[in-house]
């Protein structure tokens, strides 16, 4: 039988093209996954606040600023007056502190860039996790070492369930830990 151009196209060219497309798609999907999940996202903040300096070097407790993390759903970003507890005196003349003081005096809130976010329609509660003894770093990474905070863990349903189902593996420092709920209503309502 005589080979036609059509044969060539159907048998070689088309599968090859499809294969290349599929491979590209799959590779891109997996390679870009962490990127799409926000890993390494470290936006520039309105004030160059250093967690490394405050939480690391000076060892200020997380809850000094994030006051409600053990009380309610939100960890809460501190309001400007909390910063001013120290900075009315400390390093008043540094440019970033001048910026801060300006916000405070003009009674404007600071528009911090959001870094961590659970997907929509999921109701996450900080207090439940913190009161079970889970360390902040288990989700937020070693913030004490971060000059600029960036996202280090994924905040997907998969990531939540991974830890809920195998807490012993993911939180080895907790001696007594129950398996977290994995029913829908645990997060969705």
């Amino acid at each position, binding site marked *: 039988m005589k080979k036609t151009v059509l044969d060539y196209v159907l048998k070689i060219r088309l599968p090859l093209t499809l294969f290349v497309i599929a491979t590209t798609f799959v590779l891109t999907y997996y390679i870009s996954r962490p990127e799409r999940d926000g890993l390494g996202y470290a936006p520039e903040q309105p004030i160059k606040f250093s967690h490394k300096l405050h939480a690391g070097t000076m060892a200020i407790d997380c809850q000094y600023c994030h006051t409600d993390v053990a009380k309610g*759903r939100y960890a809460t970003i501190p309001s400007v*007056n909390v910063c001013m507890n120290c900075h009315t005196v400390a390093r008043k003349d540094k440019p970033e502190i001048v910026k801060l003081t300006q916000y405070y005096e003009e009674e404007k809130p600071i528009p*911090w*860039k959001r870094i961590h976010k659970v997907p929509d329609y999921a109701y996450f509660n900080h207090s439940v996790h913190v009161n079970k003894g889970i360390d902040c770093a288990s989700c937020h990474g070693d913030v004490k070492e971060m000059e600029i905070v960036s996202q280090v863990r994924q905040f997907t349903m998969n990531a939540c369930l991974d830890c809920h189902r195998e807490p012993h593996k993911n939180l080895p420092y907790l001696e007594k830990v129950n398996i977290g709920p994995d029913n829908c209503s645990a997060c969705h*309502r």
Partner: protein
Amino acid sequence: MNENGNSSELKKDYWKSLADYDNDPGILMIKENEFLEGVTDDFDEAKLTGISRRRFIALLTASTAFAATACTDYREKGEIIPYNKRPEEIKPGIANYYASTCSGCSQSCGILVKTREGRPIKIDGNPEHPVNNGKICSKGQASILNLYDPERLKEPLISGRKSGWEIVDKEIISLLDNASKKNREIAIVTGKIVSPTVVKLLNDFKIKYPSTKIYSVTLVDDKIRSEAWFESYGTYNYPAIKFDEANIILSIDSDFLGNEGNFIENMQKYSIKREVVDKVNFNRLYVAEGRLSATGMMADYRISIDPDKQYQFVMLLAKEILKSGSAISLSSEVISRINNSKTDLKIDRRKLSYLLKDLLENKGKSIIYAGDTLSKDVHAAVNLLNEILGNTALYDFSRSFKSFIPYSKTEELMSLIDSMNNNKVDVVIHFDVNPLFILPDYFGYGSSLKKVAGTIALTESENETSSACKYVLPINNQLESWGDANLRAGIYNLQQPVIAPIFNTRQKESVLLTWLSGTASSYKEDLYHKFLISSFNDQIYSRIKNVSDQKTIWYSALHDGFVIFNEEMKRSDINQKAFLLSKELGENKSYTLHLTESYFIGDGRFANNGWLQEVPHPVSKVAWDNYASISPTLAKELNLEMNDVIEINAGEKSLNLPVIVQPGVAEKTINVELGYGRTVIGDVGNKVGFNPIVLITKYYDSSPFIITNISIKKTGEKYNLVSTQEHHSLDDTFVKDFHKIRNIIQEGTIQEYISDPYFLRNEKKEIFGITREHKYTGVKWAMSIDLNKCTSCTACVTSCNVENNIPVVGKDQVERGREMQWMRIDRYYSGSPDEPIVSNQPMLCQHCDNAPCENVCPVNATNHSPDGLNQMAYNRCVGTRYCSNNCPYKVRRYNFFDFRDHFADEYYQNNLTSLVNNPEVTVRSRGVMEKCTFCIQRIMEARSNAITEGRELKGTDVVTACQQACPTNAIVFGDMNDPDSKISKMREHNLAYHVLEELNVKPNVTYIAKLRNTQPEDN
């Protein structure tokens, strides 16, 4: 035009430019050529770019795509904006509660307002309040929507134009000054005044402007009751009734469990004697009424009597009762009057003999209670009858209903109208009241108002009265206001704002205070706040036996929402002459029209509240309308059926409205609810229903609400009433008593229960399953509903609506059966159409262990949780509706639209109204199935609290929204795996049953069968 036809001289009517007008030759040239010069010249290809059209589009697409991907930072997650200085009491994500007082009606119940991040999201009863004990009616629950009503007035108006407060105040102050200088009348028209501070304010106002007169108007309320009490006892302060101590209650056309007085309080007291759980302790309720009311549905014996014959009925009782003596000494005139009264009533003799026997056997332990819409004559007779029986022992004078300013008599209002017509009135101030709607046409209030120069309306949103007023001043919502109330003796309630005024509105009392001061610039936001504190110190502080200083007491009262002090109204002897003056209604040759107040929209003030319009009527289950309910006999006689429009003629007035054939209505009675048919109102309430106030022609012949000698005729037209429950015909042998045959409703009598406590379980069939049992360790949620206590008041439905962000769908969607309320109260009739026995049953998701909805979901969006909940993951749902199809209880609700977007042109889809949403509950969108979640957000909150406190979650930690609202505590919720919990006792109770038990779906909602307290010989 021009005869010589010379174009150069031709002048035109229409022209494009001056050159055209002057017939410029250049213009003529242009007109001759179709295209301008050069337009049709060939392209010079050499000058064009080398990019083809196809390539250009490709480039354009590619660059747009690149730009779109490059410019959006898809990782951007927005901003988190904390407070600059966070108020100490606000913790994001944690609710704050403030005690306040509801001013939805005059009853002034104590409320607890839940606020999140500074915005009110739910109103519940104040649990410590001595009157309503943590419960609040549907109106109170839903009134939170009024705060976020998009059609609230936002600015002061002068003659319909936006203005400023300072200008308005200046003009009004000069009007008031002029009027008082010339000694011309200033009329202040108010509703019922329950606040001692407002009384003080009005008195101050009278001192500053001496020509001021105060008028108090109302539609129904307790006007007739208090006036009748005044005639019998010489005071307007009438006592509360100890329904909790009554063995026999006879309601004479009174809906005390549904819509009269403080029905929340009444229901609580009534249900104390409807206890079956620990011991059987029952009162017996007789209801003698013409319509079928919510109270009538609860009756053990219901005697149907036309409302105009109630006087005769009371006299009949008096005559029989007098035969066995009287607890007070009666004058001979009274005795002869009673003995000579006409008593040829056609009523069921068997029921009457039971009633008489019970009343005589329970002297001093029974109560006869007449309705708010009955005439003073009936009230006078009932007051006397209670005295004869010694039932005054059940009067509670320590919690009397007080009256600060008596309602204006008809004559007073007529004299105001006369003064207005004769130009003697300069200013009329409408103090948050709508007389143009609630006063019958008879008064001609609207036309008289036109003759007054200074007409002022203080109102939250536009209404009939404000549309006729020159100055329309927007006032604060109750949640933005300070206030107080001392309706009940010994209880002083405080109202505090829980949010700053959203719009440019002012507290209505502050507005008067500004006018009182005489200068427009004297207004300050805390004007009334300070006035209130000083009034509290003067009037209340001195009466509280307490050692603390004024400030401490004020703040503790504010914290609690009320203070209790010692105040007892004096008990006095009855004036028997009041009874002698009472008379029977004139002869009625035709039908009787009985007008009663609407269950949910009150006197029309809640007509723009979508939640309240959509709550189904407790009896007929009709939403979004009022109608004439007629008896089945009358329907047959006139060949009428549901939706037929009839014309009601009362004197010269007539009204066309649709009918409902309502089982149980007395033969000659036609019942229509008031409050509907508002004309000047927001989009929601506009032209909803029909206004029967127009039929009130003679204002005070007996009672305005009972109109005799009316005529009706069929018009042949049809109207579309929408009901959330099928009206199954009682005549149809197939559906008759279906609910009993299928054991949906299981009932019995006390006698049956006492003689055999297991009477319900005798014919228990063995049910076997084909699936493996699932083990539930730990907490397992369950609910029980005691049908002995449920009065179908629908507070649970409204509470659920508010808690769970349930949208308003509108009449057209209710008609298609697409209402979204997660709870409904099913109403079943049995017996005969003339004497129906009514059974009510709240129905919600039963959270079945073997849920039939779960195994048909193709995407596993609905499944079971380890704590026994039938859970629903909205974002997983693809909207096949298989689950709803497979649900035997029909409790699943589907979002056929994004209802917030769909209802009334996005009426509730705006930045303001969305603030009412509970942030803990997802706002569902189109194409998603939803249903009762057992308030999963509350369960999760309780769980997180338990974890924070380092303890195990207990069943009693969770209170669902419906349970919290239920005035009679008929709903119990908790952990059925805890053997000591109330819920597990309820589940094991002899009267406990599951609906459609034979399907073996294993529901987690248990019903406690209703027992009726019938006479032993009736069984």
